């Protein structure tokens, strides 16, 4: 039995060696031994890794999306429960989420890096740090440029600098392509983006400082919420009727709001967007999660607002 196997294996080895002689003469460059990585995080903490992180727990859906986008998905060993994209993330064990994180579950995964985000509390970071874990707090970006920087930061932590550079490059090109078509425009349709209208007389919309607002404007729209205060601004129906948006985008369509349900709200039938059936469902995750999919969001919004320009 043993002899039967040895000969074919030996022959195979010879063939492989014969086919690629270069693999023997010039070995792949030896990676430098444990290059230490030292970075300052969003809480002004100095974080040091002895090498690229190999077992990562992500505490926010945006972090999970960043990790997969730069090719570090295989290094993830745990996630928060709202991390649902890409779909393979769903198979990772969860360590908590909306109502609280379980430090015990995080410790049990033996992570060499816990990637926290702006939605996580400093108390959680302190608790994990006290337990001897390496935590990096990735601040929420406020511009696309800062989002690119975040991608590069995570790439440094995980050893995917080349992939991240290529990704940032392609994202920038896609944004430039949108800009090229939008910037020459003179007229920008008035648009209302709905986050939540549990109380239809006082719905919530994206105000200044949010990515929702930033992307709507960049996609060639005049955001009704721009004049309000706060990232998540509540606006009265009266104001909305006066603004009379030409287009309504339903960021709450994932929660069952439809163009039809909008028509049934008292007072809303007067809006031009409702009369002209310019009400569109939208995946809010594309504008609310500060990761690379913001660019998907920008393209999708531009297409909705200017369908004739993006055919």
């Amino acid at each position, binding site marked *: 039995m043993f002899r039967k196997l040895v000969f074919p294996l030996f022959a195979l080895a010879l063939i492989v060696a014969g086919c690629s002689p270069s693999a023997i003469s010039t070995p792949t460059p030896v990676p430098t031994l444990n290059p230490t990585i030292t970075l300052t995080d969003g*809480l*002004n*903490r100095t974080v040091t890794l002895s090498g690229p992180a190999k077992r990562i727990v992500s505490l926010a859906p945006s972090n999970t999306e960043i990790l997969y986008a730069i090719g570090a998905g295989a290094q993830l060993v745990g996630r928060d*429960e709202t991390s649902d994209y890409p779909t393979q993330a769903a198979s990772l064990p*969860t*360590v*908590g*989420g*909306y*109502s*609280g*994180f*379980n*430090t*015990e*579950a995080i*410790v*049990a995964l*033996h992570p060499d890096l816990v990637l926290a985000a702006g*939605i996580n*509390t*400093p*108390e*959680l*970071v*302190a*608790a994990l740090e*006290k*337990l001897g874990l390496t935590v990096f707090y990735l601040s929420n970006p406020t511009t696309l440029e800062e989002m690119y920087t975040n991608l590069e930061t995570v790439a440094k932590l995980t050893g995917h600098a080349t992939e991240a550079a290529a990704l940032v490059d392609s994202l920038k090109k896609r944004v430039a392509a949108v800009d090229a078509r939008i910037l020459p425009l003179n007229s920008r349709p008035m648009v209302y983006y709905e986050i939540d209208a549990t109380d239809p007389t006082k719905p919530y919309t994206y105000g200044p*400082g949010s990515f929702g607002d930033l992307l709507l404007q960049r996609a060639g729209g005049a955001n009704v919420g721009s004049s309000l205060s*706060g*990232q998540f601004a509540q606006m009265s129906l009266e104001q909305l009727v006066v603004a009379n948006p030409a287009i309504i985008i339903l960021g709450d369509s994932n929660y069952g709001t439809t163009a039809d349900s909008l028509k049934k709200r008292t007072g809303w039938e007067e809006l031009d967007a409702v009369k002209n059936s310019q009400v569109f469902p939208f995946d809010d995750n594309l504008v609310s999660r500060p990761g690379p999919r913001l660019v998907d969001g920008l393209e999708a919004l531009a297409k909705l607002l200017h369908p004739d320009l993006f055919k």
Partner: protein
Amino acid sequence: MSRRTLPYLWTLLFLALAVILSIAIGSVFIPPADLWRILTGSFSGAALPEPLKTFAFIITSIRLPRTVLVLLTGAALSGSGAAYQGLFRNPLADPYLIGVASGAGLGAVLAMSIQWPYSFWGLMAVPLASFVGALLTVFLVYALARVGKAVPKTNLILAGVAFSSFAGALTSFLMLRSTGELRRAISWLLGGASQAGWGPVLTILPYVVIGLGILLLSGHTLNLLQFGDDQAQQLGLPVSRRRALILMAASLATAAAVSFSGIIGFVGLIVPHVMRLWFGADYRRLVPLSIIAGAGALLVADVIARSVLSPQEIPLGIVTALVGAPFFLWVLRRAKNQGFW
């Protein structure tokens, strides 16, 4: 076993059981045999095999400090609740009656509205602000309720309720106007341990010990106060001075308890009632029994809070009311001595 020691035995047994449950149960399953080896190993100092090291770390660094923090919180809330009920001779009294919770909440939310640097004091800002807010509120309410030299009970309750509404409204307003994370404020207001390690335990320990120590010595005073203020005064009790002392002691313990754990309702209300229904209204016994049983009850609630939706956690305040209310109603229905007030 005499009738005097039996209630202590039962409550201590309950507390011991709750402590064991709290250490044994968590989102990571640790087999009982391993648990035993870790616990005996940590006492004897024997080296543990490699696979048990994570479990040992989880138990000593996560579950044990949390267990002690919850134990202290439950003891403080329940002991203070018993004292408040005796002090005001009011079955609806709980440790939050004269504004400790709303003052603490206002302080905490105010501190959360500021972006503190990530440092020791930055992380202490919220517990410190809630502690100060709670004590300031009690002093303010006490001063507002004063009529001449006396501080009538009714005035205290009314001033407390009025100030609580005021502070509560201000808290809600601040939360609605905040641009930051509402989740942090809401989860604090609903109660639950947010910081890990022994730091919080050591910080609140002196206040809880002093506060509860005074309450434990006040059993006789509370008994006398049950005759009414005039009678107690005629029996030689310096009523207003003693009342102020008990009030401050209970508030100190409660303020310390909520500063790290958030506002956990219901424990301070029902545990003293259950103790009273089961073991009688003698405050020399009622206060210590409430302290022991309150610690155990909150531990059980905490075990439920972190295991039902594991690895998520439910805010502790939700569990205490959700599980505590039906349990209390059951005890109330079964109670033989209905006229216990």
